[in-house]
């Protein structure tokens, strides 16, 4: 019988690759009996789904208000000027 720790790892692994049939059956049996693991799997899927949607929609999750500092901008401008001159 798989432990919750095993199942938490399989739940994560199933987001990245196909589980073997043995792993799938073991996980399903455990999930039948374990409420916490069922919730954990749902947590992971919710997060994973939201991230996949954001990626497909090409969203920028940081607000427009996030800007680089004036010093940074000036530093970059100087570096670009140097390159253009050389």
């Amino acid at each position: 019988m798989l432990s919750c720790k095993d199942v938490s790892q399989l739940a994560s692994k199933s987001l990245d690759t196909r589980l073997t049939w043995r792993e799938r059956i073991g996980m399903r049996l455990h999930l039948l009996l374990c409420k916490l693991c069922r919730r954990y799997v749902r947590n992971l899927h919710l997060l994973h789904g939201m991230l996949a949607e954001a990626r497909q929609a090409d969203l920028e999750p940081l607000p427009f208000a996030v800007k680089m500092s004036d010093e940074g901008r000036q530093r970059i401008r100087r570096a670009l000027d140097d390159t253009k001159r050389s």
Partner: protein
Amino acid sequence: MQTTPFCFSMKTMKQRETPDTLPFAAASDPAEWLDRYGDALYRYARLRVHDDYLAEDLVQETLLAAYKTRERFAGNATEKTWLIGILKHKIVDHFRRACRETTQEINDGVYASADVCFDEQGHWTIDIADWSRPDQALEQAQFWDVLSDCVERLPPRQARLFVLRDLDGLPSDEICQVLDISTTNNLWVMLSRMRLQLRNCLDMNWFHKGGS
């Protein structure tokens, strides 16, 4: 997913910032790239490296590299897409370098903190609550803020893992190579620990607070 006031589609920005009629010669000045796309590039980098100064550095490297290879810009992508593409490579290069320097020190932190969630028999020692999906636009915007904070609090190696796999969806063999992970089995274990940590942080700072 709904577009929120804080999540802007790059496609919309593209239309606003690069009109199709723009002659390529006029925009091949790197100083102009900085004015037009500097902040967008900065946000892209900042979200992935969690360091203001480093993000600025990566923008600089990107613009310099773009200037040096400007003849290769084919014009079939927008300038912004082209610049983001270069920036992506710079970020991956940074991860690769950083990974060589810090692998040892970070592993310890990672392994200790995920293990306290299970007892010796492998049973949960923490409660797992059901989450409800943030559905309002404002709620989603706040959710991304909390997520970004939580990623920042992860050990650096886990944060990089999150960016490469869960944020940008890189294939696992490429991630193993960039982060110098010897086997895919190790990668699965590391991803699992990272997601557990992230779940716990989100649970505490978002779902638990919002759901109750």
